[in-house]
């Protein structure tokens, strides 16, 4: 038996023993996932157990070093773990911006002390993080952000406003882009960390056109942030942000690619929907594009894993994938007719179809608009002038 096979064997037994039956069903919504944090209410004892058992083995962050709460697995081993978890439909033990976003930034830019201090609580689901990037005046043009941290010697005093901070109302800490030099646009931003319970922090949830959302507006009124709560150097936070943005787009585009492409027309037919001839044609043309994009996702993922992908290619994947998803939901609404217009009824699952359709409209805005993606393709891939 190869070493990897032995590892697989070990994992399989461990999962068999430790993954509660309730945790072997797919997560059905964001609130169904396990988010952890100081004030988190577990949905069930099984959910708590599963998170804690994984955390104890380092399996909430399998590839992080053991000293930071990970399991120190190699890429192959991590893949085995994923495969074995998928085999029994095991849920992810912990959903966390700390794991997805801050962790990679700290691992890359943090000091040893910071890693020791911040990563363990993330891995154990003890501290829940949120991300403070966008501001009302700084969306696509993120670098124009105005939230200001005034230098007061051993601390900054932060004033300003963030928007689109997911779960700001539930998070314990925030990683936040703050201007620390007004004279220097790119090199005047710092990447600060602070407690959301600090005096002067308030949040307000944002209601979307699709209904309630995890997004918040977050306000900072003279928030005190000690000088050691910074990732990377002062005024060099943009480097950290860029690193994470690339990471995020790759994640978003990878997510799209992961799903097995299915035929929308077949799915609608399974739902008993009869397609008008013109709509049938549109669905067929959509299916062509969707199945072709599935091939593209597979190709991109193969290329990315083997280091063959153009570094700007995630921008193309995000652009094409999100535009496709919006189109799919438009077609689904047309196919559903008046039934798809229902907003609150029980029959419609509380308007699941119409709310889902509206939610997709954000796909081509969040994480970089389609326009920004096209700009980046024009500049970095096509090498067009002045782009």
């Amino acid at each position: 038996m190869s070493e990897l096979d032995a590892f697989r064997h070990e994992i399989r037994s461990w999962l068999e023993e430790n993954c509660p039956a309730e945790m072997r069903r797919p997560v059905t919504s964001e609130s169904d996932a396990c988010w952890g944090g100081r004030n988190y209410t577990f949905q069930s004892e099984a959910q708590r157990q599963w998170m804690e058992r994984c955390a104890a083995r380092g399996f909430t962050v399998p590839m992080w070093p053991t000293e930071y709460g990970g399991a120190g697995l190699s890429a192959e081993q991590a893949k085995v773990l994923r495969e074995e978890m998928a085999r029994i439909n095991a849920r992810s033990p912990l959903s966390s911006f700390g794991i997805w976003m801050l962790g990679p930034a700290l691992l890359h830019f943090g000091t040893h002390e910071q890693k020791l201090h911040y990563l363990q609580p993330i891995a154990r689901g003890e501290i829940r993080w949120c991300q403070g990037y966008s501001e009302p005046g700084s969306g696509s043009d993120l670098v124009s952000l105005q939230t200001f941290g005034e230098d007061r010697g051993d601390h900054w005093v932060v004033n300003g406003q963030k928007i689109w901070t997911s779960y700001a109302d539930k998070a314990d800490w925030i990683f936040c882009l703050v201007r620390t030099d007004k004279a220097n646009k790119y090199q005047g931003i710092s990447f600060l960390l602070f407690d959301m319970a600090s005096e002067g922090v308030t949040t307000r949830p944002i209601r979307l056109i699709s209904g309630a959302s995890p997004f918040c507006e977050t306000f900072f009124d003279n928030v005190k942030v000690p000088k050691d709560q910074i990732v990377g150097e002062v005024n060099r936070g943009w480097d950290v942000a860029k690193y994470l943005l690339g990471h995020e787009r790759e994640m978003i585009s990878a997510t799209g690619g992961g799903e097995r492409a299915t035929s929308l027309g077949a799915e609608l037919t399974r739902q008993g929907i009869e397609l008008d001839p013109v709509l049938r044609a549109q669905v067929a043309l959509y299916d062509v594009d969707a199945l072709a994009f599935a091939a593209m996702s597979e190709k991109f993922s193969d290329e990315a894993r083997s280091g063959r992908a153009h570094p700007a290619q995630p921008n193309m994947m995000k652009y094409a994938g999100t535009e496709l998803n919006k189109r799919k939901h438009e077609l689904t609404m047309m196919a559903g007719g008046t039934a798809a217009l229902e907003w609150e009824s029980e029959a419609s699952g509380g308007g699941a179809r119409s709310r889902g359709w509206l939610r997709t409209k954000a796909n081509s805005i969040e994480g970089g608009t389609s326009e920004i993606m096209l700009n980046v393709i024009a500049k970095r891939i096509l090498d067009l002038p002045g782009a």
Partner: protein
Amino acid sequence: MPLYHTDDQAMLADTVRTFMAEQGGIKSQLRHWRDTECPDGFGHGLWRQFAELGLNGILVPEADGGLGMGHVEAGIVLAEIGRNLTPSPFLTTAVMGATALAAASDELKGRWLPGVLDGNAVLAVAIDEGTKHDPQRIALKAERAGKGFRLSGTKSCVIHGASADCLIVAARTSGDDRDADGMTLLAVPKDVAGVRHDRIRLVDSAMASHVTFDNVELDGSAVIGAVDGGREVLNRIVAAGRVGVSSELVGVASGAFGITTAYLQTRKQFDRLIGEFQALQHRAAHLYSEIEIAHAAAYKAQQLLDAGSPDAELMVSVAKAKASSAANLAVREGVQMHGGVGMTDEFDIGLYMKRERALTEFMGDGNYHAGRVAELSGY
């Protein structure tokens, strides 16, 4: 007849636009009735103000106390309803309902027209029984019972159904579901026994109902037009509804476009107004062109309908299809060009997106009407 407003029409347009901007605005009407969870989804006060302006009788002959105008004029009103997203029973009552009543007996007119004209009554029209518009298929049964009829069956997603004092119902009195003949239009008062409304709020906050008819007894005076011969009147109701909703969609498109170009002229990113970015300029210019064309199509269809032209049916389908696609583009571009804030309930652009979807579905979506264009053109 030229495709621009006569002086009278221009005056009407001015009046309605001013009135609606003052009284029919998004905050005071749509958001108000939505946020107070009004079970009607619209305000009766505004409906009576419409009546005071005479708008409720716009399609009612002068002899019957109306203004005796045509679909062009009704379109002027509906465009402003669309632009302001005003929830209103105008289309189902004063356009489709009034078209039905025009073919009704003096007794029915006497019973329902006064309420329509003074804004104390609301009408709704119950045609479709499935999730997609299909007036060729009428299955709801109206069996003869004594001197009247007994109705059994369902109607799906009737706009303002539960709020209506009278439902105009297309019922099968003989033949098969898809027969052109054998269909009879019936006026069903709100209080008659056996009618059940399952109220549903739609994505655009309009209220509709799924209506169940459980052995509903009506006497013979409820018939509009001839027994078994309701198809021609239904065609007129349907045409009035389709061209009316086309104008409303053009209004929705114009309203969405207006707030979007205003946003382009004020929002800055990268130290420039986003309206300076050529990619957005070109998309906005294309959208402008689409909306203008949709407007012309609706206008032309209304003229043909008012003139009783045999080309009207084709052009009405062209108008509905084009207005749907132009409005759809307008709201999609609108939300995207607004960026993140366009996704929030705080901004109005999302409300336009919701209304567009509902109106596009209502009386046949773009694909349905493209199919009609093909059929009417013999392919």
